[in-house]
């Protein structure tokens, strides 16, 4: 094959690729592992776990009966400590609030001075009026700018679990915590950071809109899941949940048909017509939307969606038509991963470790 050299360095060398390798090779990684620092971190981590080791050493020396009795007591103590630790975690670190303009407020306290800061703790709500803006930051998690007319509450702030609730308004989130650790509840969906920068808006009726600038975000409610990569948006409606995500540069007819398909009360004939528009107007990039539709349409509608999607974004070898028509999760995942927007494993990891509410 012509690009063998580009693929694995085999076959006849491609002079152009070789030239680029030579030119760019100066930037190649050549640093050894940071040994002293790694040693330091290992030592720190070991120091954080001495209790576990000491107990296991102690237990190994006890007789079976004594060990069993001790185990019962230990389970009780551990359960108590875990529950207490979890509560403590939920109380967790506070977000630092910085005023950007106006007088954002937490409870009765308003931030008015230019350099005035405050903390936002679990259970507290940051409120901005029509002329106020603020940002909140938490180390190792991210920073969030809060636009005017917003209400943002901290639900949990434990280790590896940060949860906010956007009751109304707009936030711009830049998150650098590992994927799945930062979650925002809205009245109509839960937004899960999967490594990204995004804007989330909620109006007074609870209707929401999420726009991803970098990376990707998961949106979930009532079993409806949407993955929103950079450049795409997704609307939500109360009691319905997230709609189907789409790229903002899709045609107007495509976007209009999708909104009606997701949220409007329509007759079967209208639904059929809307689906027809979506399939005909879909561009290669709109594979994002069609992939989501696969699991949202009826069994009778699915073959049409599959066939169109297979033309726009041919499925990987391990994906079959039959498998997709019966909604085989592994095949759906594999097809999604082939788009290159993000590894769906991260989403499943979130699903295993967090509850929806």
């Amino acid at each position: 094959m012509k690009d063998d050299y580009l693929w694995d360095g085999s076959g006849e060398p491609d002079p152009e690729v070789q030239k680029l390798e030579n030119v760019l090779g100066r930037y190649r990684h050549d640093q050894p592992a940071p040994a002293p620092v790694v040693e330091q971190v290992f030592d720190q981590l070991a120091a954080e776990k001495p209790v576990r080791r000491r107990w296991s050493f102690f237990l190994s020396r006890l007789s079976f009966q004594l060990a069993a009795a001790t185990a019962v007591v230990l389970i009780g103590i551990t359960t108590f400590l875990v529950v207490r630790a979890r509560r403590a975690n939920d109380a967790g670190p506070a977000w630092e609030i910085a005023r950007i303009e106006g007088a954002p407020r937490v409870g009765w306290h308003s931030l008015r001075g230019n350099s005035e800061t405050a903390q936002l703790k679990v259970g507290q709500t940051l409120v901005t009026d029509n002329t106020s803006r603020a940002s909140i930051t938490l180390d190792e998690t991210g920073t969030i700018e809060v636009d005017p007319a917003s209400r943002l509450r901290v639900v949990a702030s434990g280790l590896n679990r940060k949860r906010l609730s956007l009751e109304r308004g707009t936030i711009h989130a830049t998150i650098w915590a590992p994927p799945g650790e930062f979650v925002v509840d809205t009245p109509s969906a839960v937004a899960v950071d999967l490594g990204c920068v995004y804007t989330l808006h909620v109006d007074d009726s609870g209707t929401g809109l999420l726009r991803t600038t970098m990376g990707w975000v998961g949106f979930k409610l009532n079993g409806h899941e949407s993955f929103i990569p950079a450049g795409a948006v997704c609307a939500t409606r109360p009691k319905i949940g997230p709609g189907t995500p789409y790229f903002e540069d899709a045609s107007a007819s495509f976007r209009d048909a999708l909104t009606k398909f997701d949220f409007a009360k329509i007759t079967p004939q209208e639904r059929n017509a809307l689906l027809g528009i979506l399939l005909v107007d879909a561009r290669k990039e709109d594979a994002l939307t069609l992939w989501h539709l696969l699991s949202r349409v009826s069994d009778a509608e699915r073959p049409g969606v599959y066939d169109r999607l297979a033309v726009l974004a041919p499925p990987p070898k391990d994906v079959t038509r039959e498998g997709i028509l019966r909604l085989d999760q592994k095949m759906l995942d594999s097809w999604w991963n082939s788009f290159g927007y993000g590894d769906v494993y991260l989403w499943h990891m979130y699903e295993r470790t967090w509850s929806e509410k």
Partner: protein
Amino acid sequence: MERRAVIAQPTTGTSADDALVSAARAGDRSAFGLLYDRYARMVHGILLCRVPPREVDDLVQEVFLLALRKLDSLRDISRFGAWLGTITRNRANDHYRRANRAEQPMEPAEEEKAQSRSNDHVAEQEAAMTLAVLRMLPETYREPLMLRLVEGMTGPEIAARMGLTHGSVRVNLHRGMQMLREKLAEKAAPCTERNASANKASGQNE
């Protein structure tokens, strides 16, 4: 035959990686060192897509230290590469955001061009320009090409390390290379025209 051998490599590598991740979790320092050796080029390449070259080495170390601290939170050790890749991108985003807040940085391309001018070295300038063009490609193409052309990884290695399929990496390398060729040609065209008119002018003067 040769192709089969190359394609079989990642499977072995991946299961070996699983063992290394488990050992590193259990406190085996040399296992973590080996993981660093295996994944440092991937982390370096992903960072190079997003931050200026002179800052990448420090960030590589930061990413590995962060990963070491978070290793216990990794549920499926077979996805270590994908997980590490995401931590790397997040760290790069964070770096970019902080840089933006602290001061308005020069565009990386401009900064590198300036650096190259001061060194007055044609090869360095060419490398900086090529890197800048590579960074202009869409993310899907940019990362695999950076890993292939800069870090010297093969397509199967990229797929194994990043937890992607061979098919998607191959397609992205191919399309990315096409796009890179086009963009480099666009960049070269004005220079070629300028050189041609300069040569013409000097010929007329003579």
